[in-house]
């Protein structure tokens, strides 16, 4: 398995290309944009781009869809029916599907956005979008929602094996064990501390 991380200046977000060299197939996660470098990665390995995994519908995670769909014909997996006018294959919590030769588990973790869903690939690599970053959980619209999201993450993601690798939508990667030990959002009073950051247009 080859994983390429692409850092986009648009929203300072991470996109990923996951290549299955044995089958010559690839997936893209959260295309903030489609750059010549990303196309080069796909083309130089002769990957057939089979699927796009969308963690949530914020523009800086999906904006590249329009360009991708002009060049390739992948299936878009999201918890939305349509994104930027493109039909998606709707996934919901607990769905398990195969794409590009990999088994993918969809885990819904709403809170940062209503449609937030994370993908566990091959039982080891977790693409979390904005639900969980290195040391931080996603931004929500209230202290209540922050506490609810923190509890949901504990229940649904921290129950995964400690060595699960986290590929977030922003910032550096992490692992489940490090998030259990060093996530600032689980410090007492965190939700109240960041009150001034809440707004309804996240």
């Amino acid at each position: 398995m080859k994983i390429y991380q692409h850092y986009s200046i648009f929203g300072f977000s991470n996109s990923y290309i996951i290549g299955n060299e044995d089958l010559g197939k690839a997936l893209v996660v959260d295309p903030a944009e489609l750059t010549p470098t990303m196309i080069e990665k796909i083309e130089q390995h002769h990957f057939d781009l089979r699927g796009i995994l969308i963690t949530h519908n914020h523009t800086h995670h999906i904006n590249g869809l329009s360009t991708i769909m002009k060049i390739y014909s992948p299936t878009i997996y999201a918890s939305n029916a349509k994104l930027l006018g493109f039909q998606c294959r709707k996934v919901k919590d607990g769905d398990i599907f195969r794409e590009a030769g990999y088994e993918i588990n969809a885990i819904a973790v709403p809170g940062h956005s209503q449609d937030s869903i994370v993908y566990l690939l091959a039982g080891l690599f977790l693409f979390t979008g904005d639900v969980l970053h290195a040391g931080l959980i996603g931004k929500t619209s209230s202290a209540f929602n922050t506490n609810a999201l923190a509890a949901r993450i504990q229940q649904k993601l921290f129950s995964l094996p400690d060595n699960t690798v986290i590929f977030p939508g922003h910032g550096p990667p992490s692992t489940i064990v490090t998030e259990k030990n060093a996530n600032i959002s689980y410090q007492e009073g965190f939700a109240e501390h960041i009150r001034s950051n809440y707004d309804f247009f996240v």
Partner: protein
Amino acid sequence: MFKITPCGVEGCDRPAFSLESLCYHHLEEDPERIQKSLQELQAQNIILNRVFDDASFIGLDFSRYRFVGCSFRNAKIQHSMFTGASFHLCFLDRSSFISCDFSGADVDFCSFGSSSFMDCSFENSELIQTSFNGSIFVDCTFSGSNLYNSRFLLCDLNTVNFENCDFKRAFYIPSKEIDVTFSGSNIAEAVRDLEHLYL
């Protein structure tokens, strides 16, 4: 990326070491085999997709080696050189580094979370989009390093030099700080409190 292959010993849940069929713990019973495995590693400059979890290295020289998609979790590394080495998409969580030299290293999109560093140097390194969250640093230097988009959340820092560092888009909210110096650094550009976490 690395692939976890379970250790060949029944009941052992540790991952197999590098290209071996056993984990490092079980390989330790055969020091010659470990030696051979390390020699095989050091014979190449680019080390791709290998697992070194639970390993214990002393006095190895990996200067200017290139590590891509490797895992060094729960490793104990002492008196080793990674001078000018590059790490991309590597996971070094919960490891311990004593007297290691990473000066001039090029580290991009890696995690050193919940690790401990004692008497280590990251002088003049590129440490881009890398997590040091929850790590302990004692007598370490990052002098002259680029820490763009890296994170130092809930770290315990004792006698650490961040002089002349670039903190642009870095998150720096340690849980403990003793004798930490920043002269010549743009620490004001780092996110330093919870109020500004999501700005």
